């Protein structure tokens, strides 16, 4: 039965435009580097095959540059056909204003709720029971990357978790090696959250970020997190803090630094440099403390359009993005995990396989921060942590209190 329904929708949304005329859909996104562009090309190829045309509107600079442009275009009455946008609370205003295409019918017909996992990612696309966006991949931010050779040269066993990495720091520093590389800005916020997950645990992280458990935010579990961050800032020389996350990863690749904490997208940098996981470097999910997986990811929204041909093409694109073939081809290029469990990913590298394993178990998977807290509050936490890192006169206790106050004031 399901297959019949699916086939019917596919006929309506895909086959018809082929027999009618091709519709051009402009797609805005911020994937502009080599690997990202190759991944987008897979989408474009598959979409063009439906008889429509993918008009690429790449705007680099992540949400910071693209967001005002996307919202202005929608407000001005000249929306793009489809757009990448951070899911979760950021997009809710646009949906509430009735500016986004409702995809519920398509999602029900294709049974996205069953074929796409994890549930949390589908939830972020759902508002009041209706589906407004298509999740296309999963990215997780909780990884520690270490250069094995650097440790071996120093006569230290490559660390398998955060505590061992900290313990090895003094010896490395003596040899003129940066024990932990760090980039200015949001990577500091990422490190903070990763340490919360690793030290206070997934459940407590969700309790504070999602359920706003203030006792927990001010309690001893989180105090331990701020002590750990205090240790980290003591071993980091401010002169070695670099401007961008990929500069920090490059330091590890070149052997100038021993370790870095970054999301799974860092794996692409190691791959490009020809380093092999498990031999040249280690990737440790959950900072090696506990294998966990946050489920951030990229999603596409479809601004409402009065032209029914455009709407038809939008549905065709949404449907195309979650097909098996496209999911495999896209995610292999992007270095992210596919949304579907029923695809063959034998071509994936070791780090991706580690991630898939955690995902399949499903026990230690938790929602992305932007699904629990609004971007404004997350940025305020980043501000506190940046100051804490660079100003050693701020005590861990003071930083914890500032952190808790932001959680307390955050809109539900």
């Amino acid at each position, binding site marked *: 039965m399901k297959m019949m329904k699916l086939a019917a929708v596919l006929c309506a949304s895909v086959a018809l435009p082929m027999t009618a005329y091709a519709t051009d859909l*402009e797609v805005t*996104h*911020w*994937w*502009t*580097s*080599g*690997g*990202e*562009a190759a991944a*987008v*090309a897979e989408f*474009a190829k598959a979409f063009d095959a439906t008889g429509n045309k*993918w*008009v*690429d*509107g*790449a*705007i*680099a*600079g*992540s949400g910071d*540059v693209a967001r*005002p*442009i996307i*919202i*202005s*275009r929608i*407000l*001005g*009455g*000249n929306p*793009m056909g489809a757009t990448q946008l951070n899911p979760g609370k950021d997009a809710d205003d646009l949906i509430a204003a009735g500016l986004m295409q409702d995809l519920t019918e398509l999602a029900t017909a294709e049974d996205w709720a069953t074929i796409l996992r994890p549930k949390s990612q589908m939830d972020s696309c759902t508002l009041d029971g209706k589906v407004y966006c298509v999740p296309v991949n999963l990215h997780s931010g909780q990884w520690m990357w270490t250069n094995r050779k650097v440790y071996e040269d120093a006569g230290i066993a490559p660390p398998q978790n955060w505590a061992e990495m900290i313990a090895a720091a003094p010896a490395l520093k003596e040899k003129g090696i940066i024990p932990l590389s760090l980039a200015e800005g949001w990577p500091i916020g990422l490190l903070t959250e990763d340490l919360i997950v690793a030290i206070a645990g997934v459940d407590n992280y969700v309790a504070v970020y999602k359920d706003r458990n203030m006792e927990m935010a001010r309690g001893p579990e989180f105090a331990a997190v701020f002590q750990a961050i205090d240790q980290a800032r003591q071993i980091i020389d401010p002169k070695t803090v670099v401007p*961008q*996350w*990929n*500069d920090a990863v*490059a330091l590890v690749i*070149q052997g100038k630094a021993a370790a870095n904490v970054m999301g799974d*997208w860092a794996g*692409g*940098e190691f791959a*490009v440099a020809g380093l092999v996981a498990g031999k040249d470097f280690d990737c440790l999910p959950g900072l090696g403390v506990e294998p966990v997986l946050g489920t951030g990811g990229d999603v596409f929204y479809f601004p409402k359009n009065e032209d029914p041909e455009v709407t038809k093409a939008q549905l065709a694109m949404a449907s195309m993005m979650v097909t098996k073939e496209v999911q495999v081809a896209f995610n292999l290029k992007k270095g992210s995990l596919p949304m579907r469990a029923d695809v063959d990913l034998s071509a994936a590298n070791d780090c991706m396989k580690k991630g898939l394993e955690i995902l399949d178990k499903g026990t230690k998977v938790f929602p992305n921060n932007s699904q629990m807290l609004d971007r404004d509050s997350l940025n305020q936490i980043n501000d506190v942590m940046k100051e804490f890192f660079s100003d050693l006169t701020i005590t861990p206790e003071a930083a914890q209190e500032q952190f808790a106050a932001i959680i307390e004031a955050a809109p539900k």
Partner: protein
Amino acid sequence: MAMSSATAINPSGAKPKPFFAPGRVLIYTLLIVTSIYYLIPLYVMIITSLKDLDQIREGNIFIPTMQPSFDAWVKAWSQACTGLNCTGLAPGFWNSVFITIPSVIVSIAVASISGYSLANWPFKLAEWCFTILLVGSFIPYQVFLYPLVIITREMGIYSTLYAVIFVHTVFGLPILTLLFRNYFASLPEELFKAARVDGAGYWRIFFRILVPMSLPIFTVAVILQVTGIWNDFLFGVIYAGPTNYPMTVQLNNIVNSLQGVKEYNVEMAATILTGLVPLTIYFLSGKYFVRGIAAGAVKG
């Protein structure tokens, strides 16, 4: 009130003095030393653009490479990928030209005439508006983004070239009006009075007397506007519509890509290439910085 604008652009001062006169040496030393400070970043950019990525990673930023290569320049101009389109900066070039030329002309025309009205034919409403403009020049641009979307939408020009010309005129207005108002106000008053006694009207005085006397300040205005508009990225993307995307969209995409290996050499080449147009205009229009125009006009 006859005056010749043909003679006005010829410098009327003495010929440059010999290079080695005492005192001259000091002047040239100062000029050259300061030039070095200004040139160091350009030097770093150029030598970086001639290196390959390994040399950038390993080498010192101040030391040039022994095997320079122009690959990064070719890539920046015609091959760099931004999203799906691997066409470099080249395709946006003409869009940038079509945005810049009318925007510069319209914004300078509106502002110079407003400044002229304020300096020489003032009236209360204009003076009040001018005060508001001056305060407005301190507001960060980003605050205007959404209101201007609504205004241009209501004017029916959103997502067209007209919208982006309008927006550049708006943002150029405070500084340019001030520039022209104050420059016109600093010119000898006798000129204006004499012209009115001769019976010259508003436009005649403006075009026949003030404009020819104000070439240096028009040059400064052109420098300001060409730079601002040519390098603008945000307004072009938001107001001009996707068919008119300027070259800076590609520049932003080359420079701002967050993931993957950073191609610093291509970034540097793309920046210099994008900057060549304003640079050329600075150099060419510089000859209008000449002394003696005012004197020439009085005598004429």
